[in-house]
């Protein structure tokens, strides 16, 4: 009997992920989210929007805290003074030429921000994907000569923007190098390629990425972050509607 039990134990040990040093999807995501998700951040952002022949560049300064708060202030000449505030699930916009703050509600959040391939929602997202998606490892693949886990994320509930996501996670740094975003039907909608990953303390953070629209030809947006500070001293009243008007 003992022999039998030992062999079972041995066999299960051999096939257990720990034995091979393999991690579960959940565990991988945990590390990814540790890199991705920030408590606080401040940075200078640059967004390059390409549609067919046209190229537009938007410059912005961003403050964000946790999942609920973000303030984006545009600094490129055409949009100077325009500010976006995300607060408790709602978005408010201040336009210098408007004398009131505009609330972007419900269906308007799905509109693209500044004509890019990112919607307001996409831009505001800063939550742990584990919360909304169940994660499975489906394979291994190299991206930019880096060996990656290929993860498949399937939405747990219904209220998600993308029903399914596929992530290519750098095995060494646990940074996401490639993302594919799918519609409910499984059709590929957008693809994101991460071009630069940098180290900030313990964290590996993507600082340059390009989102490509897979359904509409010649439509892509590149997002770059500079002067990133995860310990920024963000003034208390930054994330208020009043600060929009200043």
């Amino acid at each position, binding site marked *: 009997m003992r022999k039998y039990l030992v062999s079972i134990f041995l066999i299960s040990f051999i096939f257990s992920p720990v034995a091979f040093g393999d991690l579960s999807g959940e565990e991988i995501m945990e590390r990814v989210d540790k890199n991705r998700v920030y408590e606080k951040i401040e940075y200078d952002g640059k967004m390059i929007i390409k549609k067919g022949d046209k190229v*537009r560049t938007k410059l912005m300064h961003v403050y964000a805290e946790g999942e609920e708060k973000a303030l984006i202030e545009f600094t490129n000449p055409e949009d100077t003074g325009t500010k976006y505030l995300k607060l408790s699930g709602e978005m408010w916009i201040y*336009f210098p*030429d*408007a*004398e*009131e703050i505009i609330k972007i509600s419900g269906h308007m959040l799905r509109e693209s921000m*500044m004509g890019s391939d990112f919607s307001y929602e996409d831009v505001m997202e800063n939550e742990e994907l584990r919360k909304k998606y169940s994660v499975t490892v489906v394979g291994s693949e190299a991206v930019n000569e880096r060996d990656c886990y290929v993860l498949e994320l399937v939405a747990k509930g219904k209220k998600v923007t993308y029903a399914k996501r596929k992530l290519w996670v750098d095995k060494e740094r646990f940074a996401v190098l490639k993302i594919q975003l799918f519609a409910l039907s499984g059709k590929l909608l957008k693809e994101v390629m991460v071009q630069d990953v940098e180290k900030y303390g313990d964290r590996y953070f993507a600082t340059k990425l390009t989102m490509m629209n897979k359904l509409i030809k010649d439509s892509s947006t590149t997002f770059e972050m500079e002067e990133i500070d995860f310990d920024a001293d963000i003034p208390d009243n930054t994330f208020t509607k009043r600060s929009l008007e200043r």
Partner: protein
Amino acid sequence: MLSAIAISIAVMVVLVMRGYIGGMMDSLFDSLTRIETGHIKIAHSEYYDKEDMMPLEYMVDGFKGEGYKQLLDIIEPVDGVSVAAPRIKLGVLLSFQGKSRSAMGIGIDPKAESMITSFDKIMVEGEYFGYDENPASAPKYPIIMGAALAEKLGIELEDKLTILARTAYDSLKGMTFTVTGKFSYGISMMDSKLFYIPIRSAARLLEMGNGASELILMIDKIEDAEKVADEINSRFQQQEGAYLKDGSTPRYVVVPWQRQESLFTMFSMVTSVYNFVFLGLLVLASTVIINTTMMVIYERTREIGTIGALGMTGGQIVLLFVLEAIIIGAIGSFIGTIAGGGIDFLLSRVGINLNALTGGSVDFAVTDIMYPRFGLSLLFWSFLFGLIVASAVAYIPARRSAKVEPAEALRAV
């Protein structure tokens, strides 16, 4: 004499009706050209192609980005152009005190546009835009809107509302405007959805720089539209940058009203309907004339007999009566023409107040008053009409009567 009167009445009615129909058609054409198509429309070829989607990124902004004024400068010296007005069309969301409503606006150059539409006639409250660029006292971003639209939002003069629009670069932008006037075209579809803002504000809102969506041109003589358009087009083609990247598609299309599908097809349809009706009228009027003339001849059969007995040949008799008919026809036509022409003339000055007549607004009218067409050629043709019909008609019965034996004719009474 009675026959002359009958003829004159017939001719008169024909004349007045032609004037009325002409007036209706003119009114329709007028409204459509002022509001939508202009006599000539100039736009980026891609914009014109996808006009219903209003793709703002294809703008009229010069040949190398100098702005729409460059085109206006090229157009100015061209003969026959009376107004050249830039416009930006925008579909937006109007937001006022928490309520929002979708609406359609046009960014206009106040001075040029006032030469196209008489705004003083349609303003019901407040004022139209001033012509100064930035007068000290006026609000920074004025807006005038349809009275029904204002009512739906509960907006009064001097209230401020915010316009949310998708810019030419697909981003969302908002601007606050102050209501300085309300207008009413009398057409509910327009009054409940339309507003005007100065084109500079529109360009700022939509990030269009110094571009416009289209240039609307009004011509002195509308028949010349095609010629003028060709002239403008050839001047454009001499510019560097006149063609798009592929080398063969012109950057801008210059479309005279005759070639603007929407206006032209509607117009030709309406014209055919009205012409058809007019034809019916002509036939009717002819029967009256025929009626009269024939009776005159028949009643004088005895007279014909007498003359025949006295020795005139058949041919001479016919001639005699036809001549008489011509004279009566001429007199009748003449009177009818004068009377009808007089009425037409009067009405063309004063206009028919359609509002009062139909108890409500009439389709497409920019003004309530419709001016029947008055023209000398119209008079001439009407006169001829009466004359010819009377004469032609006189021939047959005259011949018939002439053939009859004098004795028989003398007996007939």
